[in-house]
């Protein structure tokens, strides 16, 4: 009994240790991703820059844990930062006449109000620029707070008083401080989205690698019939179905009624129209049976085409018409009637089959190239 208890205790200890390590490493990972620094030399807002850095890390660390930032400490920290920024900037601009700073102060009050609600979709910047074009005035302003930024002339005498910081220098640093608050979150969330896009891109690479080869016409038809994939408002995975129109291929056909020696030979095949569910993960061959009985899905890429075959063989018609079934993206089996005489054919996409072993593919290719029909 005591042995069982000891084993159970060991297991529990191991699980706890593993969980602890997982959490510890997760935190370490989070810390690394949110380990940002002040990348400018603060002159006017030194304390605020330190507070902005801490706030930036705190907001960053909520990524993936607290979508709406329900943590009251961080929300309060953000709101306090807004208030302190307003006071600090007003203080720094105190030597400049109100006629010049009125708009800035209004915007600071609005920013302070904005920081009362912390929304990851609304982490705003303070914009400062020489102007959007030559001849236009310089501009400043917070994003979102108004429909346009405030125009001003930084060269006016009120903005350039001896021994006092000028407007441009103060506004540039204001930009830096406000940007610092959002920097951690912006970087971390963009990196996460980059990982998600990478996963999506791998689906597309897999599509290129495993799906049936298409001609340019097939590509156009597939695109037109899968319009939603192209017109989506977001980045999306590949379509489930490929379509084929007038698709040429080479098949190995057996026509029992042909003269001896030409029963089995290569033929040229045209798929007039066809489709292919290329992704085994999105096909379920026994879906109907699944409704009735509890059985596992049989997953396999599958498709079909209306197909004609052409070849020059004695005693039978040169062309035959029938259907083909595509299995596993690489194999096609088909039947065609040559004016009453049946023919059966098979095609293997050797390129797909041997794409990871190029030597084999090259050998097969050489052999195939020697064969003519």
């Amino acid at each position, binding site marked *: 009994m005591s042995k069982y208890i000891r084993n159970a205790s060991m297991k529990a200890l191991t699980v706890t240790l593993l969980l602890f390590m997982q959490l510890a490493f997760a935190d370490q990972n989070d810390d690394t991703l949110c380990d940002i620094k002040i990348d400018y030399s603060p002159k006017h807002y030194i304390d605020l820059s330190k507070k902005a850095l801490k706030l930036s890390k705190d907001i960053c660390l909520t990524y993936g844990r607290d979508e709406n930032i329900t943590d009251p400490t961080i929300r309060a920290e953000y709101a306090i930062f807004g208030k302190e920024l307003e006071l600090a900037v007003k203080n720094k601009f105190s030597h400049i006449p109100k006629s010049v700073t009125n708009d800035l102060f209004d915007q600071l009050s609005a920013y302070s109000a904005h920081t009362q609600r912390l929304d990851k979709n609304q982490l705003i910047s303070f914009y400062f620029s020489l102007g959007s074009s030559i001849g236009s005035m310089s501009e400043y302003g917070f994003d979102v707070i108004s429909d346009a930024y405030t125009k001003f002339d930084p060269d006016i005498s009120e903005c350039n008083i001896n021994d006092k910081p000028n407007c441009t220098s103060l506004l540039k640093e204001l930009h830096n401080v406000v940007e610092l608050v959002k920097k951690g979150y912006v970087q971390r969330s963009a990196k996460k*989205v980059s990982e998600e896009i990478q996963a999506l891109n791998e689906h597309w690479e897999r599509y290129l690698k495993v799906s049936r080869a298409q001609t340019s016409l097939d590509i156009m038809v597939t695109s037109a019939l899968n319009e939603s994939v192209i017109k989506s408002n977001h980045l999306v995975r590949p379509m489930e179905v490929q379509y084929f129109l007038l698709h040429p291929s080479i098949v190995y056909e057996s026509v029992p009624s042909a003269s001896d020696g030409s029963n089995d030979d290569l033929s040229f095949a045209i798929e007039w129209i066809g489709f292919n569910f290329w992704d085994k993960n999105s096909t379920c061959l026994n879906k109907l049976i699944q409704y009735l009985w509890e059985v596992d899905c049989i997953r396999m890429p599958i498709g079909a085409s209306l197909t004609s075959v052409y070849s*020059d063989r004695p005693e039978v018609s040169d062309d035959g018409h029938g259907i083909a079934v595509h299995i596993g993206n690489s194999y096609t089996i088909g039947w065609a009637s040559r004016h009453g005489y049946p023919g059966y054919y098979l095609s293997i996409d050797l390129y797909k089959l041997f794409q990871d072993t190029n030597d084999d593919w090259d050998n097969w290719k050489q052999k195939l190239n020697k064969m003519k029909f």
Partner: protein
Amino acid sequence: MTKPIIVLVHGMGNHTAPDLKTGQRGSFGKEFIDGVNKGFKHFEHLKSESIEDHASLIEIHYNDIFDKIRKDLASNGQEISSHISGTKLAGLPGVITSIINFESKLDQDDVKYTHWLDVALYKTYFGNMVRGHVAKALCDIIGNYNGRRIHIVAHSLGTSVVHDTLHQLYSGDYKEDDGIIDISTVTHKLDSVWMVANVSKLMATVLPVRDPYTSLVRPSTSKSGVCRTMYNVHHQLDPFMLPVQFIRTKEDSWIPEEYFDHYLDLETKMVTQYDTHAIKQYMEDPVVLGNFVHSVLQIPVTLAQLKKAKESYKNISLEGAASEIKTAYKDLVRGDKGSMKDFFDACSKAYELIKNKADLS
């Protein structure tokens, strides 16, 4: 402020990729830098400057996606072509042999396949692959932006790629981990987007991701646009601009009237090379470069300096070239009613003219 980040997105045609290990620029990056640095020479106060001292340039390269597709199509076409050559198959529709013949040539270094086909392929589902690639690269850049301003300069087909990618990547209603792959039009806002030789409206005439007039790719201080300022740059004699132009006016209510000065329509007229579509010519032109320096690099440029630069640039313009180009493109469809066919006609005319001039020189 620290150096801004300038993201460069190339257009159609063959472009070599930048080598991240050696720091070697791609061909589009080189052309861009060449154009900007040559343009600096026309401004007295910028003569000794180099763009690389004032900005971090990052190229997003997607040309190899098209290259691979072209080669795969050609390989399949050649395989079938080698089996049916010299064979007469009764009843075989002629259109089939046309498709096979066309595809078997796709790996050739012909402008039809290296340029025009890029445009056609982009309009198919392969466009999704390109957009995925560009979106990832852009998120990697934002993920390391370090508080710096991000500007995008897209050229030709790249304008359509950038437009479509930004529209699909950005959202005004961003939420983290909601299953939708997106970033926020506010939190992740770009500083500016430069659409040079903007074909996004023309490309949207077939299977559009979104009409550029209704998409999120517009300047805005809030969630209704991905960037703060947008520049639409076009040469008066760029043949690709003729069939359908991207035109926005205050009356369109596209963006608030008080913010319309953050949409800049820059038209260039001077001809210093017959390829009026080239990024180099666009960037060298003081009308473009002056505004670029002022707003992106934040180096002040005055109207007087711009006037002098224009005079200097005029000295290197090709005499009589403008009227020659006008004659060459006189039959091309102009206005807003053009189609992709008109675009391909423009491609042919441009190629013919540039080739003739190259043969003569």
